[in-house]
């Protein structure tokens, strides 16, 4: 099985404090992995580090995308290597419209394969699939968006940028039942196209749509247990306390 994302013994520090204490994770092509874990256990730290956020300092270990270390790459270079992160808390950028932003993003990542004149049409088509109204195009990026609207916009970007490895950091949080269905279908349909997915979630419900091949439990900056889809159900029933004594894998 070809490895798309490999994380090896990753130690990460943020604001002078070590938050990740040796994470190991290996995701093959077309696989869906889920990470579940307590608040503050370091899940977002992991996703930000993989994306290359400058605040998160890698102390040791490696992150490899399709066999090559990406530690020396800037976030935009990683994006152009078709890595995508759907943020837990997308930031707003006043004065930059969704249309301007999406256009720049698409041309930056897929400039070689899409003609500028077709970008608008592509955006419209994908917006229709996710039931995002046209009026969003002229709004400022994430400004005044509801929690659910932000998550839909993250999903839209993911579909438009055609990543081969995508990380969804609680993209299912704060979604109503219909939105969850839309977003999940949007993600699931990408899976058919042989994409690898890392889903960070607190709930079983999205995993009902996007069936994970593996489920990992994150506690205290480490993966302490891995299993199949059944583990997610078990966690939902039993919580995390019973795992507190587990050693890192």
């Amino acid at each position, binding site marked *: 099985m070809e490895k798309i994302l490999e994380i090896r013994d990753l130690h990460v520090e943020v604001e002078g404090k070590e938050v990740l204490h040796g994470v190991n994770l290996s995701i093959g092509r077309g696989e869906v992995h889920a990470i579940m874990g307590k608040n503050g256990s370091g899940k977002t730290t992991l996703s930000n580090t993989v994306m290359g956020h400058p605040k998160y300092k890698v102390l040791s270990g490696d992150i490899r995308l399709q066999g090559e270390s990406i530690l020396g790459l800037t976030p935009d270079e990683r994006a152009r290597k078709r890595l995508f992160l759907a943020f837990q808390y997308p930031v707003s950028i006043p004065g930059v419209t969704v249309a301007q932003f999406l256009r*720049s993003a698409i041309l*930056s990542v897929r400039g070689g394969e899409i003609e500028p004149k077709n970008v608008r049409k592509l955006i419209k088509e994908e917006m229709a699939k996710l039931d995002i109204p046209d009026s969003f195009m002229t709004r400022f990026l994430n400004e005044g968006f509801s929690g659910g609207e932000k998550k839909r916009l993250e999903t839209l970007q993911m579909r438009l940028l055609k990543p081969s490895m995508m990380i969804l950091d609680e993209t299912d949080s704060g979604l109503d039942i219909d939105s969850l269905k839309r977003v999940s279908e949007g993600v699931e349909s990408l899976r058919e196209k042989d994409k690898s997915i890392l889903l960070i979630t607190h709930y079983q419900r999205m995993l009902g749509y996007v069936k994970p091949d593996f489920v990992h439990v994150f506690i205290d900056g480490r993966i302490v247990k891995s299993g199949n889809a059944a583990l997610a159900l078990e966690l939902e029933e039993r919580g995390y306390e019973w795992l507190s004594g587990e050693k890192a894998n």
Partner: protein
Amino acid sequence: MSVSASPFLESRKQASQHLGQLTVPTIEQENYRFSPASNVNWNLSGNTSLAAMETPSQEEGELALLFVSGSTETLQGKPDCIFQALASVSDIPTSVAPKEPFSDDKYAQLSLAAWRNGIYLYVPAGKKIDLPLRALQEFRGEQANFRTIIDLGEDASVKLVDEYVGDARVVTGILQFHLAKNAVLEYSQVQRLSSQSQFFLRQDIQLAEGAKFEYTPLYLGASSGQLRSQTFLNGAAASFSVAGAARGSQSQHFDFWMDVNHPVPDTKSGIDFWFVMDDQSRAVFNGLVHIGKNGIGTDAYQKCKTLLLSDKAQVNALPKLIIQTDAVKCAHGASISSIQAEQVHYLQSRGITAAEARRMIVRGFTAPVVDRLPTLALHERIDALIAQKEKL
């Protein structure tokens, strides 16, 4: 052609007398506190004429382009309107009476005494001009002094984009606006002088009942300078709205001195400035809203937002209020921020380079001002000029 002497000849004479009597302002004076020493030549003979300039071309969406080193522009299909370059007092129609403001201001008196160019725009009562007019004034030589007169009759409306370019060491100008009842003016002022230039602009804005003035100053160029603007909302329901931006780099220095007077009931003013300051540049906002004894029902605010791109850049926001009556709505505020690492990271994670991300964020910050410019061609051109100042 009238043979009687223009009243503006007399006004010139008076101004040069005032000029001689007034002392040169120093930084000890409150409103000049942040204004650096000037290179102004107070001698009237210091004024140099315009050099020939490259011919600019009209842009999409414009009705007319006046380029100020000479010709009279007649607006096609608008025979009663006048849009022309001023080179001497005889260019001002004899029907216009001088109403010279700023008798206490040496810079204003210099412009009034020594001006050699400028614009005259007249839109008669009831005339509405939809497509914007543009004037491009290029200033060259040691010192250029100009005067601009804009006069709108009742219910007239027009949009004017006024651009200042060139590398004159000093530019002084006096601008006068007179809007009759219910007249509407959208006035954009783009200052993109060379980095050698200093500017001193004085503008006087008189608004009658129901008149509406939308002012969009965009200051990009020059090494330093001061804009002193005073507005009088003389009739009920008159309104004055400012959305201005300055983009500073290196040791650039912009000083906006804005006085707004609400002497009668039920008038409205709103001032918003957006400053983007890099390197050691500095912006000063010195605002005064004065609500007179009869100014009941005034609605006024002053706001100033700054994006600092360097920790050596500075901004001084000094909004002041004088309120002599009750029952008014008045607000002021100032905020300073810098580009958020989270914002840059978000854009970068979508494949956009860090430099481009910064440009987009700055662009977004000034969008409320740039988007007020009347044509798309201008939006793009000004955005590009702002982006050029971004160092990579």
